[in-house]
């Protein structure tokens, strides 16, 4: 069904008047693409977690450790 020019124009105006996040609702979602084989998906998922875990095991660099120590001290003073 082709909307009348008046109705099409009205719809456009309604969309334009929506707050930004409401206007975004009218935008089609990005295409998801085909689904992977579950085992391939699981393999990739576990790899992502494993590489993350490796990074988590690393000690923090000195400059971040110093910031954390300062945060710790600041909170201690506010106790």
């Amino acid at each position, binding site marked *: 069904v082709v909307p009348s020019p008046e109705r099409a124009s009205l719809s456009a105006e309604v969309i334009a008047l929506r707050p930004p996040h409401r206007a975004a609702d009218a935008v089609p979602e990005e295409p998801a693409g085909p689904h992977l084989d579950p085992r391939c998906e699981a*393999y990739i998922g576990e790899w992502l977690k*494993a590489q993350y875990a490796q990074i988590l095991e690393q000690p923090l660099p000195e400059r971040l450790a110093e910031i954390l120590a300062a945060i710790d001290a600041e*909170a201690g003073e506010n106790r």
Partner: protein
Amino acid sequence: MTARLTPALRDQMLATVPHLRAFAISLTGNIDRADDLVQEALARGLSNLERFQPGTNMQAWLFTILRNLFHSEYRKRRREVEDPEGLMAGKVAVLPEQGAHLDYEDMRTALTKLSPEQREAVLLVGAQGMSYEEAAQICNTHVGTIKSRVNRARNRLAQLLSIERDEDLGPDRLVQAALFVHQPGRPG
């Protein structure tokens, strides 16, 4: 620093930092840039602590700050090549368990080839273990968009690694994958 940093908030911040760093390293592919981002995100978080609503998710709040900083920086650096000297691959490769998985190098390289939007989505959901809703909140987009990005990121990774079908996994990978995947009817 702000006077509102209570011990409870401190504990939440300190607990988040390692995860924030893991996200930043995976997102940027560069440890030095990642640490710069974490440092800046913590500074912004502390100076804007009055905007944090107690009882809400400190981790999501700091991830949002870091993610926004990353995208601001990314826009400035758009013309630069991502990880031009293989810094991430080189530095992360010295971690222990390097030989545990033969595909680590390929996987790391593949991750850096995703678009920033796909990379952050698959990291937040697939690595950090956040819900689609949490990831959507952090990325300031819709849940459906995050689901699409995660799916397309997984497909792209599979394509880059030539593991789009289970027969592509090969015997070693297949054993690993079989251990990973949830078997229907298996407890837990």
